[in-house]
């Protein structure tokens, strides 16, 4: 019967002398007697009490002595700091920069990974997605059909709660004479405030959304419309009254646009993937009601609560069965066959996605209610943070060991006076931790100074209250210790290994192996720097390509005015002619789509290949769009007012013609099922109507007068004929707009900016890489400075002797620089393939990409080399210039 292992371990750990082994043995023996006498449990308690009795004595002893020693260490650091001011400042700068960048990056990373964690039941909430495969189309999306939530709740007992949210899209919202185009209106089931942890400031949680035509405003929305007056009970108009019918169904539903304000909610937290300014009761939206039977109308987002995640596989299985029972009827009703779909290897599933995965894990799925993040960015950023921190630590190592000669006497004397190696290691670790604490304080100041700038750069708002928490403070403290130990452990081991006899005699016998280790560190630093610089240059070229690539149409001097839901209506023609009469305005056109902003995508049949379906992106525009955007007509003609056939004509792009395999496209026909045929009257040159991420694809331009399909998007595109768009132009257009439709908001954007916005991610990445590669090279150069100082100190006698024999400053510089240039060349050789590999991988996401040429590699190599030669040269100059007499007189 032996004592528990863990007790013995503790005892062993506490007893810190040579008796350790036999004492533990004695304890084991006594333990045995006692177990026989009074049982195991009581004996265990006795053993523990013995351990507890030992603790205070040991604790007191070690604390007492280590405090005395610690104060001595701090004193030494302080003196050392004062004595080597420049050196210490360099060391601190490097470490502070590293820590500040790491903190900034980590703030970003934590913000991203903590999305949606404010919900009380975040770990129980799941979003249902729609995973489908139908003929050649497959995909996954976040839209689900209206009956799904009800079905889940009624038929699967393990699901405790469900909710549906329907995003309404852009709506014009009005209260008396205040109106706005609201983009974040959602319709939600009445349990919204119970299901999620969004806070309700006014109103009854159970009742605010329970009756149709109720609306809850957020605090800032309420302020926008009502100022300081309480909005409760007021009537707000959202959209327009209308009677909704759906093609093919005899039902009609009235949409009543008057909503009663029943509550006020707190603004949604910044880290919520569900964004809203107004929440209406979902029962007020006729279409949701319309499709109560439908398993095909994928316009609501469904969430469900499941208490235990182990139940999920079974729930998903059950759901599949239920969908298999319910969906066929819905399919039949619209003339499709669910059987066909399943028999042809199709699928129509609704998988569960955990709440904490939605923001970062929805790259393919998307998010209808807000934004999504990019997981890759988190990885890139986190690795940059890691590398910068390592660079800073490496720097510290290099600088500290380079000062070893000046400290070797101190170490020798400490050893002679009885300090053993572990005490010295403790001393140096205390020093590096001290440095790390100071640097962290400096870094915190830097972080605070740059916080605003950083928020702008990242395009995010960080809530400080969620950053400054007890947990994070502890993390920061641990981080400081980690940095201190990481940076200090090598110098500590290295410096404490000096033999007092050699050191005190005055020979600094520094083993070459130490230099080698340091060389490895320098190579590492420069590899990272060169990698970052090369990558920055390549990212730069790609972003320039995005900016400057000829897209196949004019994007400059073009203003896009939002006309969604046909704000102008019949008045467009007169609006247009009144604008055209003004100077400065070259052309005005109306269209349902604009490059990079919006287009319609659908399937068509084409003449000659009737059994196939072809995908075609399209706009519906008037006859002026081609001249406004300067599309090039390759064959045939554009729309012309004088023809009555415009509504049954289409203009295709070259890709479409190529896909259809037509030699002579003019006069050929394409069909849209249920509407009729369209004659091809012209062919335009390919233009990038989507982003440069995508290949060119088939595009067709229809006339605005063709009635299919219903598309609420509409834009007025205005081309100005001056070099720069001034506020006069905008005022002019706005005044005209006010004149024609005073009750509709005027909203505009610039075409070139809109296009550029697609590449925000890359622009941001470029910014980050530029900043961090500059920091990396700065830190690396600081490290090099240290190494140069070390070499100079180590070789100063050699230099002195060479000088007495007539070596010139230049030749000495060359001699000493040679080693460093070699190191950097090695770094180049390592960094180039790495940069090439990762950048090729990054570029592979884009359909239009630059060829990676030689220039980024050459430029980065040159930059780094020149930098290092200057830094090393300046440092060596001091040594090389010294009078040889001062150096060798002691021999």
């Amino acid at each position: 019967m032996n004592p528990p292992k863990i007790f013995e371990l503790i005892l062993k750990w506490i007893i810190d002398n040579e008796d350790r082994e036999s004492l533990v043995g004695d304890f084991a023996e006594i333990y045995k007697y006692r177990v026989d006498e009074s049982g195991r449990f009581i004996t265990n308690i006795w053993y523990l009490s013995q351990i507890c009795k030992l603790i205070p004595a040991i604790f007191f002893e070690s604390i007492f002595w280590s405090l005395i020693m610690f104060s001595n260490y701090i004193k030494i650091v302080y003196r050392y700091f004062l004595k080597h001011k420049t050196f210490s400042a360099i060391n601190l700068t490097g470490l502070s920069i590293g820590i500040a960048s790491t903190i900034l990056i980590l703030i970003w990373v934590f913000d991203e990974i903590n999305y949606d964690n404010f919900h009380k039941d975040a770990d129980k909430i799941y979003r249902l997605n729609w995973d489908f495969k139908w003929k050649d189309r497959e995909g996954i999306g976040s839209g689900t059909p209206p009956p799904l939530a009800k079905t889940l709740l009624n038929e699967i007992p393990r699901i405790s709660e469900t909710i549906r949210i329907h995003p309404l899209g852009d709506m014009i919202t009005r209260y008396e004479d205040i109106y706005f185009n609201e983009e974040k209106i959602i319709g939600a089931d009445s349990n919204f405030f119970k299901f999620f942890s969004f806070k309700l400031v006014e109103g009854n949680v159970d009742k605010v959304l329970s009756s149709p035509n109720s609306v809850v405003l957020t605090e800032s929305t309420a302020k926008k419309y009502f100022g300081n007056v309480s909005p409760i009970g007021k009537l707000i108009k959202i959209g327009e009254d209308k009677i909704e019918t759906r093609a093919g169904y005899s039902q009609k539903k009235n949409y009543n646009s008057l909503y009663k304000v029943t509550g006020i909610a707190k603004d949604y937290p910044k880290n919520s993937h569900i964004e809203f300014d107004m929440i209406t009761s979902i029962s007020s939206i006729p279409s949701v009601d319309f499709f109560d039977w439908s398993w095909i109308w994928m316009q609501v987002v469904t969430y469900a609560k499941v208490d235990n995640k182990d139940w999920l596989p079974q729930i998903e299985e059950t759901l599949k069965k239920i969908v298999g029972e319910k969906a066929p009827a819905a399919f039949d009703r619209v003339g499709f066959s669910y059987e066909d779909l399943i028999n042809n290897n199709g699928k129509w599933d609704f998988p569960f996605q955990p709440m904490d995965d939605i923001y970062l894990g929805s790259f393919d799925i998307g998010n209808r209610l807000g934004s999504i993040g990019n997981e890759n960015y988190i990885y890139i950023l986190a690795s940059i943070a890691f590398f910068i921190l390592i660079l800073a630590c490496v720097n510290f190592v290099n600088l500290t060991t380079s000062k070893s000669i000046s400290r070797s006497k101190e170490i020798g004397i400490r050893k002679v006076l009885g300090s053993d190696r572990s005490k010295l290691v403790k001393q140096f670790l205390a020093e590096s931790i001290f440095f790390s604490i100071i640097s962290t304080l400096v870094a915190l100041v830097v972080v605070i100074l740059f916080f605003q700038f950083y928020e702008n750069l990242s395009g995010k708002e960080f809530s400080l209250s969620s950053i400054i928490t007890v947990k994070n403070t502890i993390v920061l403290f641990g981080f400081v210790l980690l940095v201190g130990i990481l940076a200090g452990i090598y110098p500590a081991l290295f410096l404490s290994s000096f033999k007092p006899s050699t050191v005190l005699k005055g020979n600094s016998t520094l083993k070459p192996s130490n230099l080698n280790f340091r060389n490895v560190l320098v190579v590492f630093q420069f590899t990272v720097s060169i990698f970052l610089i090369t990558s920055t240059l390549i990212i730069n070229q790609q972003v320039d390509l995005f900016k400057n690539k000829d897209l196949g149409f004019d994007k400059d001097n073009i203003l896009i005015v939002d006309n969604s839901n046909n704000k102008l209506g019949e008045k467009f023609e007169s609006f247009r002619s009144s604008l055209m009469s003004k100077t400065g305005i070259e052309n005005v056109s109306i269209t349902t789509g604009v490059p990079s902003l919006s287009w319609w995508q659908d399937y068509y049949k084409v003449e000659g290949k009737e059994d196939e379906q072809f995908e075609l992106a399209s706009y519906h525009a008037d006859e002026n769009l081609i001249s406004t955007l300067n599309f090039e007509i390759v064959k045939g003609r554009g729309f012309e007012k004088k023809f009555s056939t415009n509504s049954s004509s289409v203009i295709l792009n070259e890709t479409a013609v190529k896909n259809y395999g037509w030699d002579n496209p003019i006069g050929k026909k394409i069909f849209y099922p249920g509407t009729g045929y369209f004659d091809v009257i012209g062919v335009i040159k390919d233009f990038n109507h989507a982003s440069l991420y995508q290949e060119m694809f088939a595009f067709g331009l229809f006339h605005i007068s063709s009635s299919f399909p219903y598309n609420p998007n509409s834009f007025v595109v205005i081309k100005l004929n001056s070099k720069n768009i001034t506020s006069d132009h905008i005022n002019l257009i706005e005044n005209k707009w006010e004149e024609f439709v005073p009750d509709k908001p005027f909203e505009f954007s610039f075409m070139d900016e809109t296009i550029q916005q697609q590449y925000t991610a890359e622009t941001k990445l470029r910014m980050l890489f530029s900043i961090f590669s500059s920091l990396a090279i700065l830190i690396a150069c600081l490290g090099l400075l240290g190494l140069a100082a070390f070499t100079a100190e180590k070789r100063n006698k050699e230099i002195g002797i060479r000088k007495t024999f007539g070596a010139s400053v230049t030749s000495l510089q060359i001699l000493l620089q040679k080693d460093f240039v070699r190191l950097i060349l090695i770094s180049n050789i390592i960094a180039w393939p790495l940069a090439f590999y990762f950048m090729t991988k990054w570029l592979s996401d884009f359909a239009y990409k630059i060829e990676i040429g030689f220039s980024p590699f050459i430029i980065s190599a040159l930059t780094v080399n020149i930098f290092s030669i200057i830094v090393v040269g300046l440092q060596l100059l001091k040594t090389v210039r010294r009078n040889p007499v001062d150096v060798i007189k002691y021999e």
Partner: protein
Amino acid sequence: MKSITRIEEIIMLSILNLGANAYLVSILGYVSKTLGKSVSLTSVHLPLSRLEKNGYLESSFGDATPVRGGRRKKIYSISKTGLQALEEYRNISNKLWDSYLKTETR
């Protein structure tokens, strides 16, 4: 003069009595038996380490037994100075007893 306390004397005498088998647990047992009451571990261990530090005891490592989880015993024996100290203690005690007994019988 080499001073030891009463408990130290008891412990040292126990060690002498135990001979080659004097280690912490056996000493503890012997002392308890002699005094007729249980003695705590620390009240033996602390004097032992003090005595060893002052050079009254010598120690060597003995056998490992399975009962001890395979750990060696630390066997104590009395050093020369230790013996002297014991003798001195006894002499003083004897002297005091003698003089007291003399006055009693007179």
